[in-house]
């Protein structure tokens, strides 16, 4: 720890910066070959909660030749102190400056953290552009969901890991060590790395554009690197590395509990959802392995809460068996089980009785759209009656507050669909009063409405986002309609959603807009108090970029998309088919009922639900 104490005494939450937590890995830096730092471009509290980083920290520190540490974006008060005194960004475990490391691995979870990546590199004293870095600088790599379309940040990263990182990160470190032994040459390392499946080296692919600004072609620089980069998956989740201890934060973090990852992928196929597509195929862990991992983590952490994590937890084929096994010992050890938001069609009294989140707070359901028509368009496959039945179960179990998630600005949405949101909320209130053994409290429904953002690798990837004015009108329309005081209407900032949409479907031309935004001092865009829409517009204008080209344009079905050189297993044909079914208001059955031929089964996978893989 090399930050002067007088600075730590001055900043908010100094324990964000000190390191020294229980469970951190400390090694002798002279006894390892590779020094790696996981960099999370947001606050400590958010970064410490990330399961991916927890897993990969374990993977790399299991290697004797590597020491993996952690770094986070310092909050603005600390940044000010660092800049005033030229303190370079450091890694938590050793306190050593990041620029002395071999590799920095950024976890890129959402578009609004891009400026933080640039700011962290800047604070570390590392040139922002990959092209300006030489052998004296660390290799800067990226992983996480945003790398499925890494084009808007391509100039800043030396390489991106596409897909699940447990194996590929290990291979990249091994390759690094080999290159280091024979005299490290950056370009040679990157060329060899590009041959590893699941590795994308942006500098080795040159895009060209049509006159209208759309992508014309992407040309690989060498013959021996793939033209299409195939994502990596862990085939057998039971054999996938999982941490046997966690770094225990001193201060409260966002997910301050054990996160037990139950399975990857999702059988549902909601047409707006990127996670549900890029994590395909579904691969489950067995109850035996999960119980063992849960117990090991309870022993090692001392957490008193455990959450079962996956995209749709109630779709786990052995959910009852798993919860029964866990409840055999969690109660006695004062550990409470919790589940993330549940699908209404699988929410049962039995499940509710088992999970303790139900004891306190409110319940959250996500109908996503207000009418059956629009729910069919997005393939939510949930009906009003399912929601009301689930709410009744909750009310009978002593709940009086329900939170409902919706999206506004979905393709084909009309005012009728917005009315549907209000009607649905009112039906829930009505259902409450129809429940004889309801609690003796006034009911409350909170509507939380996000703005639809078209994301790459979804059937809606071609859709335009509504114009800002339209989004604002929709919000005002619903706000005016809702006058029941038992219904609370919250909605996301349309301006934030627009910037997110620009970068979600962005191409390489956006890199210079990011550079400009960084230059203008933008960071922590995901935080209300630091988000400046006008400044963003100014940055786009300064570099000659029209944000509408990315956010509000309907992309052509024949168009070469910026992310088309990434192969996630699910085919573009499937997305097109699904898009057309959406417009026909036709639903698609979930993967367990019917294989819809998305293509992900080609990737293989144990305990998967893909029919062609069943033994």
């Amino acid at each position, binding site marked *: *720890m090399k930050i*002067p*104490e*007088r600075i*730590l*005494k001055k900043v908010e939450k*100094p*324990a964000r*910066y*000190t*390191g*020294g*937590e*229980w469970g951190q890995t400390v090694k002798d830096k002279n006894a390892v070959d590779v020094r790696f730092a996981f960099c999370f471009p947001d606050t400590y509290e958010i970064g410490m909660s990330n399961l991916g980083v927890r897993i990969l920290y374990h993977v790399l520190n299991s290697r004797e030749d590597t020491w993996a540490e952690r770094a986070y974006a310092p909050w603005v008060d600390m940044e000010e102190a660092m800049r005033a005194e030229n303190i370079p960004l450091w890694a938590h475990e050793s306190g050593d400056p990041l620029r002395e490391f071999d590799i920095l691995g950024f976890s890129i979870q959402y578009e609004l953290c891009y400026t933080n990546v640039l700011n962290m590199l800047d604070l570390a004293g590392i040139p922002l552009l990959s092209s300006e870095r030489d052998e004296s600088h660390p290799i800067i790599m990226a992983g996480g969901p945003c790398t499925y379309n890494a084009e808007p940040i391509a100039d800043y990263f030396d390489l991106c890991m596409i897909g699940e990182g447990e194996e590929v990160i290990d291979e990249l470190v091994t390759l690094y060590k080999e290159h280091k032994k024979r005299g490290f040459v950056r370009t040679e390392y990157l060329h060899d790395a590009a041959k590893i499946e699941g590795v994308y080296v942006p500098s080795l692919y040159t895009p060209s554009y049509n006159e209208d600004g759309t992508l014309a072609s992407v040309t690989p620089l060498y013959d021996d690197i793939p033209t299409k980069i195939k994502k990596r998956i862990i085939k057998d989740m039971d054999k996938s590395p999982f941490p046997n201890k966690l770094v*225990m934060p*001193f*201060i*409260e973090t966002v997910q301050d509990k054990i996160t037990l990852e139950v399975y990857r992928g999702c059988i549902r196929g909601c047409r707006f959802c990127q996670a549900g597509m890029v994590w395909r195929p579904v691969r489950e862990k067995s109850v035996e392995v999960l119980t063992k991992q849960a117990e090991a983590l*309870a*022993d*090692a*952490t*001392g*957490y*008193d809460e455990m959450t079962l994590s996956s995209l749709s937890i109630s779709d786990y084929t052995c959910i009852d068996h798993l919860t029964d096994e866990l409840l055999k010992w969690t109660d006695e*050890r*004062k550990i409470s089980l919790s589940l993330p938001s549940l699908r209404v069609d699988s929410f049962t009294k039995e499940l509710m009785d088992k999970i303790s989140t139900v*004891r306190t707070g409110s319940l959250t359901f996500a109908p996503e759209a207000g009418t059956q028509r629009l729910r069919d368009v997005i393939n939510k496959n949930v009906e009003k009656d399912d929601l009301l039945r689930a709410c009744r179960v909750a009310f009978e179990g002593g709940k009086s507050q329900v939170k409902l998630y919706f999206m506004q600005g979905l393709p084909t949405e009309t005012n009728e669909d917005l009315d549907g949101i209000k009607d649905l909320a009112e039906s829930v209130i009505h259902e409450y009063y129809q429940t004889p053994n309801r609690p003796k409290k006034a009911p409350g429904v909170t509507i939380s409405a996000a703005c639809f953002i078209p994301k790459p690798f979804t059937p809606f990837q071609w859709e335009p986002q509504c114009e800002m004015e339209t989004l604002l009108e929709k919000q005002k329309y619903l706000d005016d309609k809702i006058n029941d005081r038992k219904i609370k209407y919250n909605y996301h900032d349309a301006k934030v959603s627009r910037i997110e949409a620009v970068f979600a479907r962005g191409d390489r031309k956006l890199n210079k807009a990011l550079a400009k935004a960084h230059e203008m001092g933008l960071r922590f865009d995901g935080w209300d108090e630091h988000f400046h829409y006008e400044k963003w517009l100014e940055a786009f204008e300064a570099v000659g970029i029209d944000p509408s080209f990315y956010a509000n344009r309907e992309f052509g079905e024949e168009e070469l998309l910026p992310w088309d050189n990434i192969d996630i297993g699910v085919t573009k044909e499937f997305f097109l088919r699904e898009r057309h079914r959406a417009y026909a208001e036709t639903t698609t059955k979930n993967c367990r009922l019917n294989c819809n031929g998305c293509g992900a089964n080609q990737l293989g996978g144990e305990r998967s639900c893909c029919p062609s893989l069943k033994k």
Partner: protein
Amino acid sequence: MLSQPQKIRVMFSKTGSLKFISHLDLNRTVKSAFLRSRLPIWYTQGFNPHPKTVFSLPLSVGTASLSEFMDFRVTEEITGEQICKRLNEVFPEGLRALEAYTPTTKFHDIGWADYEVRMEIADPSDMVDPVKQALSGEIVIDKTTKIGTRTIDIAPLTRVDDIFVENGELVLRLHLSATTDNYVNPKYIIDFLTSKLGIPGEKDDYTVCRTAVYQADGETIFR
């Protein structure tokens, strides 16, 4: 199994990174350490069982201590050595259980505490006498509490035991009142010196460590 849960006091130190965690976060850190230790800790009964841990004198964020206390209860017979050993196996670096025993005093009995302040300042030897001088008369400070700011003289609640230079640092040993009503935070003395003598200045690093805690007479070590 004991028929009644038995009260245990652990004397512990809080140094290194642990200096920078708040009282609330210390509570969380200890709570998870209890679960890791698998010690027979007594939990409150009811809806939300939790170990009933009570800490002595809260410490300001940034201040280290070699003499902290926490009380809790155990449900089984266990020696103090065993408790310390098992806690130290699961405590993060910077948190050390020094001694565990059945307490015979109450936290209310605490009257005084010793602190060591170390300042990294230029020419520390030149400052020994001015600091002695400054702390020999009235020490008037603005004390801000829940009811507002009062200007008081804390000299009667302060005893300067030693001022010397060691390893290029100016070291102050202070004996300060630590009762609930008249708690003197060492920060008051530091702020007083900054306003009077300009040390420690804005760019000077300094550390504060609570080194001992006494009963009301100021002489009997509290335990």
